[in-house]
């Protein structure tokens, strides 16, 4: 048999130490395993859109139908949103980002449960499991972005220079989803109740985050409170990146970014800790 040199994940020396003495986050190792991360993500994308031929329909149906319903309500009730962009564009963009976030958190939170059996049999950097779940969700977001372009063309909306912010806002959203997801993945190894709580939070979050409404519609005091929600700044930042007419609420978004960073670290810490104790419960 011919020997084939495999480049990744070759390592000069693997050092195995107790969890307390090993690094919490080995970025170099994650990078070496990028090939595996890619194939794990691809497998999930395939599972969603490959086998299920209606996969694309399901990704589009939810935000489109909800947009149609809420635009109808808004029109019949004559409610004032106070946003500078057409409501349909505002609403649809908010919905697709929210669903991207919610699905990502859900996938990441389910990662230990889903890949746990695998983790007890083969070694791979454990964080690849939640990471690949989130990366795979990008495909859904990309598909859902197509109607967004059509809506923007319909209303004659154009992105400005702010469009350069889009990847940064998306990365920040993924970081927030990763942190939250990892934290709940860790917690749900200890108590099933955390899974239910996450489900509730993600459901309520859709209505308390500025997805359907605009912060301007709220009284001043309520605006301050709802900005504590890290998804508020994120959603507004996302729209600012998309629509030239929509101003970026800089401080609110920076707050979301900072909180994403903190949650990311807390999530990694909790996830690694939970995974290490989970492994012994065979």
């Amino acid at each position, binding site marked *: 048999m011919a020997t084939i040199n495999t480049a990744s994940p070759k390592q000069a020396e693997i050092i195995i130490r107790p969890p307390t003495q090993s690094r919490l986050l080995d970025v170099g190792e994650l990078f070496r*395993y990028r090939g595996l991360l890619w194939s794990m993500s691809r497998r999930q994308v395939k599972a969603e859109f490959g086998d299920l031929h209606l996969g694309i329909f399901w990704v589009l149906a939810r935000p489109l139908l909800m947009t149609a319903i809420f635009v109808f309500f808004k029109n019949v009730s004559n409610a004032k949103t106070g946003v500078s962009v057409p409501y349909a564009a505002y609403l649809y963009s908010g919905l697709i980002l929210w669903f991207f976030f919610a699905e990502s958190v859900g996938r990441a939170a389910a990662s230990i449960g889903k890949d746990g059996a695998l983790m007890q049999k083969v070694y791979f950097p454990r964080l690849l499991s939640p990471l690949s779940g989130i990366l795979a969700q990008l495909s859904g977001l990309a598909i859902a972005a197509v109607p967004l372009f059509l809506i923007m063309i319909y209303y004659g909306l154009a992105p400005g220079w702010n469009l350069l912010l889009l990847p940064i806002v998306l990365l920040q959203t993924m970081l927030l989803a990763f942190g939250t997801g990892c934290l709940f993945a860790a917690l749900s190894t200890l108590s099933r109740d955390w899974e239910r709580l996450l489900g509730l939070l993600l459901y309520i979050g859709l209505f308390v985050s500025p997805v359907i409404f605009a912060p301007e519609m709220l009284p001043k005091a309520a605006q301050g409170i709802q900005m504590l929600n890290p998804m508020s700044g994120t959603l507004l930042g996302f729209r600012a990146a998309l629509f030239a007419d929509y101003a970026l609420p800089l401080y609110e978004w920076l707050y979301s970014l900072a909180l994403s960073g903190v949650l990311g670290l807390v999530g990694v810490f909790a996830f690694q800790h939970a995974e290490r104790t989970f492994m012994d419960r065979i």
Partner: protein
Amino acid sequence: MEDYAISVHGLSKRYSLGQKKPSHGAKGMLLGISELFGRTPQDDHSTIWALKDVSFEVRKGERLGFVGKNGAGKSTLLKILSRVAYPTDGEARIRGRVTSLLEVGTGFLNHLTGRQNIYLNASFHGLSKKETEQRIPDIIEFSELERFIDTPIKFYSSGMRARLAFSVAAHLDPDILLLDEVLSVGDMAFSQKCLERVEELTRGERTILFVSHSMDAVRRFCTRCIWLDCGQVVMDGPADEVTSAFTSDSMNLRAHQHWDPPPAQSTDQPRLLEDEDLPSNLPEPPHAHLVSTSILTQDGRQTATVCVADPIIFELIYEVYFNGAYVLPDFKIFTAEGILAFNLVHTGALASPDIKKRKPGRYRSIATLPPHLLNVGLYKISVSLTTPSSGKLVVHAEADNVLTFYVHEAPLGTTSALGPYRKVKGIIRPLVSWMDESVKQSS
């Protein structure tokens, strides 16, 4: 040592015995948080050390076997080296790419087909899609699962999963291969194929760590062996010696037995008797007692594990009380199930008539079994001292199941009656000569 492949230093692993139940309710949720961010519970009565302070180094290309009872820590050790379990203390360093085969269906996902699982498994070991594609025909051919390769593996039997797992691992071309009891899965034919493949792999520069309950497999594949007990290294040395020592210990083997002299008879003064030919002139039996018996190697060492290709030497030392006594030793060899394999009776009386009239004193009789007589397995020995007579056999002393010994497989490359088989049935396994020729068919 600089060229090590694996270096393990002070490795320990503690498991909590009490299965912690996931707690429910608000209290459980809060407890969860404190557990996640707090410290792990410290040593208490409900913990067990699966490994304690284990250290060893494995050179590149070395084939190291692990033996020990269930729960001795062998599998835990391989799990830590495969990085699917964390050590509690200590350190291990590994140089090279590791592939491990720990349990049946290692790292398979049920909803994927056999083929998809090959790709998945290969990607865990860092093979790209292209590299996997190059190997896939070999892997599928080896597994003999062509017909089922595009079926989701949830429909596979455990034997089929094992085949697939082994086939993938055997074609990943790792520097270090960790195998845990894998050769005992699947049917006989496939298991034979796996053995051959492992043999093939061992020819290269590969380092192999091998956990098995089969001493014969360890002897066959490993150059070195570590015996673990209760998470600690009991012995580390050549595979031959360590497996022998382990077998002796675990099977209660006995290579030697000594008897204290019976008080009554031994005090008797030996008497001279006129009519020496008639045993009836001797006092009532017993005329002798057993002193000791042993199983020996050719160079005179006591041993309870013998290679099939070596002679087996039985020694019996006994004391004769009376002048002119006619005492013959004999050995009975029983299988582990208690079936008498054969009875070794002394034939010396025919050869040397002197033996019929012994002087009082201590005698030593040795019986040598030729090589390639007993098959691999566990045997027990009973000994006795008798006088053959026309009437009833006179028994002076006897002891049942005094010694237990194990006949083990010959190492690779030694001529034995095993041939290409994995196991040969029967109590005896003589090495015979075979002659083959083509025969013309009569028209």
